[in-house]
């Protein structure tokens, strides 16, 4: 296959910083969880407590997956397998899309193919790189676990590592098919993100509906077989160690990759198999205005995240009655929430869940503002700024649309969560209290947005990376921070630590005022810097 090596070298060169960084963070992050979890939960008593409460309350399985027994291995699986599984899924899909669909879009594909390169070489090249990445992760994880003091044996370590690498490659294979169907890289990424989310939910439903068998293990409902994350969990690497489920994954990979190549053979370069429709002859009245154009550009991002956030809020609302009991015996959550009495327990739990979903709205805000850099880098901003639209107006429009969209999402999260709890369980909560609680996170969202604007003015090329990194940190600190007893100093870097977790904790207006001021400051400085720098593409 001609030119293959060149293509592989090209992919590695283009991602020479990204790939090692991703792999490093992935592997080290996971390995670091071992001593951290051990510290907090290592004792037999803690494990027994966790196991007993989880076993009695199956609803929690939706989010976390099962705990097979009161062992450290089960706990490790519970806390890491799914989340790192999600991460490796995204890693692989983004990689495949970037070097196939996206390439075609930017015309690089045509140029590559005009050389002595077989039509399918691009896909082969990126799949080989993906395979290499997954194998590297597998080896690193396996070796890492073996040298660390874990409490489980070599076979389990390697099965864990191999399961992780396999689920990664499964998603690379799925991506290989999806990129043949759509015309743009962004659509492909969007569809794949949706598939990953759906797979997670399907597996969650399977666990939720599952039944314990004779040996006390949870046997998920058959729908879990439809989800790659279901296959991931089926190997139970650190407990029962089943190698056979890997065969399902590998079989699927073979079929998916073959399908990808068959589809590839049938289409033109740059085209998707689904036909592209003709469009309108004239622009609508709204589209010709700066606001209209901004809404058009932000529309899909808003809708996608809105749906995701609402589905998550509704699902949590449905499962709440059972879930709250899980945490009644959990030391770290109790410490974190400082509760007394079971009504407040539910409120505390709901507040925590509200915070988590609202953090996802921050992700929407960063994603939405990412359009700023996108428009500049593509060169479209040049044409727009050559008209009557000023830099301030352009940036301001995007900012306002995202801020309003995000605020709507925050309020809707509180609304949906409260409504679902009220209608689907025995509990009753004050809906408006939750709407207000959601909105109270708006200043925090504005800080994220201000941070992005500042970076966009100062270091536009890094704006996205830094903003997402900080977001990742905040999300991690919120969800896992208390569980691994992260140092207070480190936790304080996360802005969520400085706001009240409402409604169980009363909204603290002073910190919100300070945070809003900080946000405004970031925005003003960012804007000023943007107006004084060159517009580069």
């Amino acid at each position, binding site marked *: 296959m001609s030119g293959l090596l060149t293509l592989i070298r090209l992919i590695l060169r283009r991602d020479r910083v990204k790939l090692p960084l991703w792999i490093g963070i992935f592997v080290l992050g996971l390995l670091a969880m071992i001593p951290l979890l051990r510290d907090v939960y290592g004792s037999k008593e803690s494990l027994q407590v966790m196991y007993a409460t989880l076993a009695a309350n199956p609803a929690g399985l939706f989010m976390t997956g099962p705990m097979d027994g009161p062992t450290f291995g089960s706990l490790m699986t519970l806390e890491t397998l799914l989340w790192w599984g999600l991460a490796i899924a995204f890693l692989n899909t983004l990689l495949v899309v970037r070097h196939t669909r996206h390439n075609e879009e930017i015309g690089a594909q045509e140029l590559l193919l005009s050389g002595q390169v077989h039509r399918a070489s691009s896909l082969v090249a990126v799949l080989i790189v993906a395979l290499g990445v997954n194998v590297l992760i597998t080896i690193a994880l396996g070796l890492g676990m073996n040298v660390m003091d874990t409490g489980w044996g070599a076979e389990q370590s390697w099965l864990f590592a191999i399961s992780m690498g396999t689920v990664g490659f499964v998603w690379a294979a799925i991506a290989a098919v999806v990129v043949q169907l759509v015309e743009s890289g962004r659509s492909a990424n969007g569809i794949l993100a949706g598939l990953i989310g759906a797979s997670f939910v399907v597996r969650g439903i399977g666990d939720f509906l599952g039944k314990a068998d004779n040996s006390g293990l949870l046997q998920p409902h058959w729908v879990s077989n439809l989800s790659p994350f279901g296959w991931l969990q089926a190997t139970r690497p650190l407990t029962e160690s089943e190698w056979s489920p890997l065969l399902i994954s590998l079989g699927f990979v073979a079929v998916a990759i073959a399908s990808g190549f068959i589809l590839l053979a049938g289409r033109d370069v740059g085209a998707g198999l689904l036909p592209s429709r003709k469009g309108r*002859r004239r*622009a609508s009245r709204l589209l*010709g205005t700066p606001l209209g154009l901004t809404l058009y550009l932000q529309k899909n991002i808003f809708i996608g995240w809105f749906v995701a956030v609402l589905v998550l809020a509704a699902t949590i609302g449905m499962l709440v009655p059972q879930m709250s009991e899980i945490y009644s015996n959990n030391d770290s959550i109790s410490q974190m929430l400082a509760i007394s009495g079971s009504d407040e327990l539910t409120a505390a739990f709901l507040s925590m869940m509200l915070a988590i979903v609202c953090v996802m709205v921050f992700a929407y805000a960063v994603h939405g503002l990412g359009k700023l850099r996108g428009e500049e880098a593509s*060169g*479209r901003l*040049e044409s727009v700024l*050559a008209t009557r639209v000023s830099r301030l107006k352009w940036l301001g429009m995007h900012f306002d649309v995202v801020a309003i969209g995000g605020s709507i999402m925050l309020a809707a999260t509180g609304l949906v969560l409260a409504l679902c709890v009220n209608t689907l369980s025995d509990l009753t909560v004050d809906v408006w209290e939750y709407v207000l609680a959601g909105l109270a996170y708006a200043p925090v969202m504005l800080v994220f947005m201000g941070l992005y604007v500042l970076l966009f003015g100062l270091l536009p090329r890094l704006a996205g990376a830094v903003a997402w990194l900080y977001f990742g940190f905040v999300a991690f600190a919120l969800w896992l921070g208390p569980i691994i007893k992260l140092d207070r100093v480190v936790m304080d870097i996360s802005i969520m630590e400085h706001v009240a977790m409402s409604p169980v904790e009363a909204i603290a207006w002073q910190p919100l005022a300070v945070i809003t001021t900080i946000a405004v400051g970031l925005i003003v400085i960012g804007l000023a810097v943007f107006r004084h720098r060159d517009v580069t593409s």
Partner: protein
Amino acid sequence: MAEASTIIDIQNVTKKFGRSVALDGFSLSVRSGEVHGFLGPNGAGKSTTIRVLLGLLKKTSGEVRLFGEDPWKDAVELHKHLAYVPGDVSFWPNLTGGEIIDILGRLRGGLDEARRARLLDRFELDPTKKFRTYSKGNRQKVALVAALASDVELYILDEPTSGLDPLMEQVFQEEIRALRSQGKTVLLSSHILSEVEALCDRVTIIREGKTEGIYTMTELKQEHANLEALFLSKYEEK
């Protein structure tokens, strides 16, 4: 307004990007009502000059005046009087050509409907296709129609016809001549020497960020057989 006022006045402008010098004491002036050619080897600084003129880049030193004002400070006000065709045409992939033309026209302050329809017809552009489905030449036509359909004083065109076929090149030239006869001003940066020869009154040649020379078309025709001979002779000079 004086009989031939200077619409674009670039005096001794330097533009540095970090340590690399893109413009090195460059000067250019364009009079009202003329079609002014802008020539230079690749990487000489033509696009940089245009971007400075549009207020996208900040000059390091020197004076830039557009309609008598500073384009870095008054960009929005000045842009009401100009239309721009970028060197690298890129627009929103899922919008149609027609929509993009309308958007740019409206953002500029207005489109002449009759002109728009006539240009779409003359350039044989199908406005219902999505931008990403256009060929390179057609993408350029979208930018061209968007600019030429506006009724402004100044047209800044950065290699506007590099992807067009000879027939469309003729259409373009006829449209520019029409603009000139209406008293409009055009700054045309181009590599297509026959086009520059056919359309321009004066030509500024830039080389390595400096003004290599400013010539009238009559001067050029007297001294050199054609523009190409001039070009090569100027560029080969050390």
